[in-house]
């Protein structure tokens, strides 16, 4: 499951030897994130984001479990219990702001992690399973984040739940029945709030389980790297510890700096003011919007405004779910044997367009529905689907990649040959 030159765990202390014989847990850790896991030596800072996502999940579980000790999942008192946490629980404001902004940080680092995978072709053989499990984690995260946003039982919580569960009523014939069954009523109420709380507590642990599979699947081929070239010799790798634990330390520091700035200085920047108004089924907010991390998908949903065989709403729901589910097929849509976009000029250009496209979708998702923004959303949604479903399969056939380095070590030494000259010139 690893390279032949991987270091082996040799317990020195008698206690560790005893433990290793009975339960080789230290050995597992050593091989997973210790010196026993050889990693390409040329990873850049984009490879920090997997560890950061793991850290974000851990922080969410710690703050979440503590919040659950004070929160009451009952429609009559949920909003009030959140205010009690904010005002009367020791450091309750810190726990709640850390949890609310922690969700944003988690999604942010995961989006960068996914973007890294797209750019460097980490989804390609032999890492398809790593990618598939990653998409499963992403789906679980989205469900968890949505249900967590409902719990404070503010106006956006309630109406967000109303809109999202309303998607299911787009299913022909049985849709409305399914929606009522999911909610446990005709509209979001105590039954819905209770089951959302239950699932919101459960799914992070399911996610943690899938993350273990994700890392397990990763350790079979080993980590990808910025050149996308396979590891060929021991010279291409360094042990994970201490090399990447040290580098991840820097990433963790920067992550915490951004996180702290959000919690302590702008805790409500990413939230919506309406969620400080208690849920009221009789008063619809002027402008229902989801959290920032769902805006691109919300824009796709809203862009389908025309009936064609199927009603517009069903098209929107299909497209919105499709926009995420299509990621499952990515390893087979992109047939280019070259992984890294550094060596794929055309793919790289289209990927930059996709990045801008998703940012536009994010803007449209949060904007008021004016003809200009709707138009923008429709064009951007079309590009999103064309990019993955049409352009990617065609480009990977026609593209002529740039020559690849023969090995990771060669690429690194080439880079330093250039850099070394400038450095010595500067020293003189």
């Amino acid at each position, binding site marked *: 499951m690893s390279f032949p030159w991987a270091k082996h765990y040799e317990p020195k202390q008698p206690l560790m030897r005893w433990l290793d014989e009975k339960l080789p847990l230290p050995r597992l850790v050593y091989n997973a994130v210790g010196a026993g896991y050889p990693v390409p030596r040329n*990873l850049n800072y984009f490879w920090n984001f997997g560890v950061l996502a793991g850290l974000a999940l851990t922080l969410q579980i710690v703050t979440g479990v503590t919040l659950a000790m004070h929160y009451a999942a009952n429609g009559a008192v949920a909003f009030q219990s959140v205010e009690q946490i904010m005002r009367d629980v020791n450091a309750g404001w810190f726990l709640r702001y850390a949890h609310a902004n922690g969700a944003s940080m988690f999604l942010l680092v995961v989006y960068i992690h996914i973007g890294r995978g797209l750019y460097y072709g980490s989804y390609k053989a032999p890492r398809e399973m790593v990618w598939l499990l990653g998409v499963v984690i992403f789906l679980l995260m989205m469900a968890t984040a949505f249900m967590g946003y409902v719990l404070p039982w503010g106006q956006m919580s309630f109406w967000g739940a109303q809109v999202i569960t309303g998607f299911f009523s787009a299913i022909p014939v049985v849709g409305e029945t399914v929606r009522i069954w999911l909610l446990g009523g005709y509209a979001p109420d105590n039954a819905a709030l209770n089951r959302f709380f239950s699932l919101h507590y459960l799914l992070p642990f399911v996610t943690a389980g899938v993350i273990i599979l994700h890392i397990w699947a990763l350790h079979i081929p080993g980590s990808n790297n910025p050149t996308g070239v396979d590891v060929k010799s021991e010279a291409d790798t360094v042990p994970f510890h201490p*090399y990447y634990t*040290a580098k991840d330390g820097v990433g963790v520091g920067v992550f915490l*700096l951004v996180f702290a700035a959000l919690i302590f200085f702008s805790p409500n920047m990413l939230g919506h003011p309406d969620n*400080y108004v208690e849920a009221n089924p009789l008063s619809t907010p002027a402008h229902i919007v989801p959290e920032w991390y769902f805006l691109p998908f919300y824009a796709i949903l809203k862009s389908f405004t025309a009936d*064609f065989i199927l009603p517009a709403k069903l098209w929107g729901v299909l497209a919105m779910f499709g926009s995420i589910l299509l990621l499952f097929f990515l390893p087979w849509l992109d047939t280019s044997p070259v992984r890294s976009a550094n060596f794929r000029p055309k793919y790289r250009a289209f990927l930059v367009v996709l990045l801008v496209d998703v940012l536009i979708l994010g803007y449209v998702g949060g904007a008021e529905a004016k003809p200009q923004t709707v*138009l923008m959303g429709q064009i951007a949604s079309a590009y999103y689907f064309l990019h993955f*479903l049409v352009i990617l399969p065609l480009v990977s056939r026609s593209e002529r990649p740039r020559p690849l380095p023969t090995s990771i070590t060669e690429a690194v030494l080439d880079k330093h040959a250039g850099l070394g000259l400038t450095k010595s010139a500067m020293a003189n």
Partner: protein
Amino acid sequence: MVRFIAILVGAAFTFVLGLALWGTVATWITDPPLPSAEHEFLHHPKDAELSSAGYFGKFDRRQVQRGFQVYKEVCSACHSLKYVAFRDLEHIGYSEAEVKAIANQWAIEQPSVNAETGEAATRKNLPSDHFPSPFANEVAARAANNNALPPDLSLMAKARHDGSNYIYSLVGPDAYVPQPAALVREFPGSKTPPGLHYNQYFANLNIAMPPPLTSDGQVTYADGTRATRNQMAKDVSAFLTWTAEPNLEARHGAGLAAVIFIAIFCFLAWGAYQNVWRDVKH
């Protein structure tokens, strides 16, 4: 096969989006969106210049106390403050005895139960009580206010965009103005209906709340500050900023400490990284 189906699916979504786009453009031409009165006449909130604003802001306790006086003498006639307790007033500089007196003398009593008969009764407020609502229930509140419901003010500064400045602007001296003639001319349908009041900072321009701060000196400040309408509006905004975020100072203080601590951590982590990698080109 996967790629063939993918291209078909991609084409289908693009085709339907094309139809939708056609519809959007057609509607835009035949039925362009009309300008709205809100869009043209709504004003952005003015800066209340509160000392609590900004990354390291702190409350001006004297101002927050003045704001509390405005709430007590003006706002509390209609608006509840249900998430705030009398004891919380100690955090804005009132002594324990003062808080006890404020609670005891509060005009509206706390709903209670007669200990002998078990019938509904009221009793004097204690420091541990939350501010009582001026109305027994929503029906009573609406009945007294031309069918409008005065919202609870505890969280108002966070429940509106730019909340602190919004509150200041909404009750400030230039909020309630006569409806501009140009508005009635351009949008005859938007004339302020009877029972509502034109307010150029309110989302739909017509607010049910009558002008709350009508004259200078409406409140006589305990600290001798001249109670102009502008001053009262700023002060009540400062008070409601505190009720919405009572832990703001602790948060800013902890934030500064946390950022300094993490910055040192970053520096050390960077040093460790450089040290570990010094002999490995990467």
